[in-house]
């Protein structure tokens, strides 16, 4: 019987094997990497799906810069890679795929202004008409930093139909003007099949790497942006309401109550550490100071309540002024509506509202 089956399998498969058609030209139109003189860089460029941000030192002349890009196989870019352009304003590049069927416009910006220390969350755009992205601007109204969140990952669950359905969204009535609303949400059938049944609302200073968010969720949090100040305290306003039923993955834990979390970490970058991630954010040797809300202060509050957290410096922490000027020190702020959201534990509906956050520095 086995041999008969094998015989017919081969017989049946033969015509199909020979039917594999020639490979079509590539349909992708990505900027895969961006290189500029490393002497002028403060941090590695952030390359998102339609945006490249190049963080350079403050002395750099932006009127003539020629970034070099690598693209999807066979794709072309206009203006050409390596063309000197004036980057005092962002430049648009159009990438066309090898098959000519798809095009993508990238906004490429050189950012020499360091990120400020007061965050009011008044600047929001809706990305791909799907979810909200908060950003900071400089004195010229140029975007100098996107706040990162896991929204791009939540988009893949197919649950959300409008920006308000996402774990991280704008809050129209904040403490002053707009604020941020973080809500822990279930990820539905598709999230569950990927082993990620829950998504905590989060917002952080850094980059969310969607590409690796399923394979290595903790590593996909790239924490930190260069700053030109040394922080000593972290303060702001919040409201919090824990969700009803706590779950660890899919397991209900009625005896546990959800809690929010916020922390700020000040650290030094070098050739081996470009950013912190979910695996080393509290433990890495390059960390200089941490400010994290105490467990007893992670309370529920229906009114705007303030928090004030001092940075605790390591005993051996030394600040080098030159490094500070060159953007070698980075800072991250992290807020989440479920403290164990990284491991997919929390209560659906836990809601953290934040606004008027400030880093106090010398």
């Amino acid at each position, binding site marked *: 019987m086995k041999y008969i089956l094998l015989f017919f399998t081969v017989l049946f498969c033969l015509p199909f094997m020979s039917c*594999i058609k020639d490979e079509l030209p590539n349909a992708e139109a990505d900027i895969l990497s961006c290189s500029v003189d490393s002497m002028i860089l403060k941090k590695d460029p952030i390359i998102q799906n339609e945006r490249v941000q190049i963080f350079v030192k403050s002395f750099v002349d932006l009127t003539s810069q020629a970034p070099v890009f690598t693209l999807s196989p066979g794709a072309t870019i206009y203006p050409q890679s390596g063309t000197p352009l004036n980057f005092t304003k962002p430049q648009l590049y159009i990438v066309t795929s090898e098959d000519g069927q798809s095009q993508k416009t990238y906004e490429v910006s050189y950012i020499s202004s360091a990120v400020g220390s007061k965050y009011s969350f008044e600047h929001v755009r809706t990305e791909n008409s799907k979810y909200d992205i908060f950003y900071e601007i400089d004195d010229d109204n140029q975007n100098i930093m996107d706040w990162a969140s896991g929204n791009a990952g939540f988009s*893949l*669950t*197919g*649950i959300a139909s409008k920006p308000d359905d996402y774990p991280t969204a704008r809050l129209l009535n904040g403490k002053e003007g707009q604020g941020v609303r973080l809500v822990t949400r279930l990820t539905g059938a598709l999230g569950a099949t990927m082993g990620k049944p829950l998504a905590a609302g989060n917002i952080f200073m850094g980059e969310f790497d969607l590409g690796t*968010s399923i394979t290595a969720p903790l590593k996909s949090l790239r924490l930190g942006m260069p700053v030109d100040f040394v922080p000593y305290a972290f303060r702001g306003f919040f409201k919090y309401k824990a969700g009803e039923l706590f779950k660890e993955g899919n397991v209900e834990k009625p005896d546990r109550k959800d809690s929010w979390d916020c922390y700020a970490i000040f650290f030094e970058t070098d050739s081996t550490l470009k950013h912190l991630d979910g695996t080393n954010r509290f433990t890495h040797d390059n960390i200089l100071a941490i400010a994290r809300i105490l467990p007893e202060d992670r309370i529920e509050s229906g009114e705007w309540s303030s928090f004030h957290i001092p940075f605790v410096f390591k005993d051996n922490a030394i600040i080098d002024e030159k490094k500070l000027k060159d953007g070698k020190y980075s800072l991250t702020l992290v807020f989440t509506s479920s403290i164990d959201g990284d491991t997919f534990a929390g209560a659906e509906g836990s809601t953290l509202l934040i606004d008027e956050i400030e880093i106090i520095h010398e």
Partner: protein
Amino acid sequence: MNKTDKMVKLNLFAILFLLLGNIGNSMAQGSVIDDYKLHQDSIVYQIRTGINIGGFSPLPFPAEIREIKGFNPRLNFSVEGSATYWIGGEKRLWGVKAGIKLENKGMKTDSKVKNYSMEILGDNGERVAGNWTGGVSTQVVNSYITIPIAVTYAMNENWGFSLGTFCSLILEKDFSGYVYDGYLREGGPTGNKVEFREDNIATYDFSNELRKFTYGIEIGSNWNASRHLNVFSNLSWGLNDVFKSDFKTITFAMKPIYLNVGFGYVF
């Protein structure tokens, strides 16, 4: 397969055998009217059991399919009862055959696709569309009740051929699988990119999107070992997409192509 499905299947087999039993009875009873007898003699009853080997496949293969890494036809059984009315009295050259068949059609494939447009639907109406590049594993386990109708031609004592059509009603359905080791681009080839590696898979189940009725053509041959026993092979080719017409996830039509081989017993 759940218990109810199993019961349904058993019951249908029971009905089929009862039907065949009755045919035997009516034959044994003989007839009183000559004319009736003549017709009766021209009708030949047969049961066949066999296996189905084949697959559900788009033809030709779309260019998005880059490689078939594995194919397992599974062991699919069939049992069929049929009646053939032979035209032309004693000569029995041409005939018309109708039957009823219970059969499984299944397969398991493992393929690699590039830039394959798809849409995944969750149980609660979640909807994610995108282009997948990477591995796709698919399993199909369907069972059908099929009515084949064919013109038969007896070339000589030993060899016979048939050409006909069939229509099938699906009884049990499973069209499911998972994607693995690759990446999804949300919305299209330029959308956000997310990778799946090693243990990360996304499962899918399109069973409920399968069409109830399928039809097609079939061509067959048989070799008579004796007056009662024969071996047969029958190639059936589905003509309509196995999926409902409003199902957009798989962008090309999938059609069942199966070779049915086995033994027949003529009464």
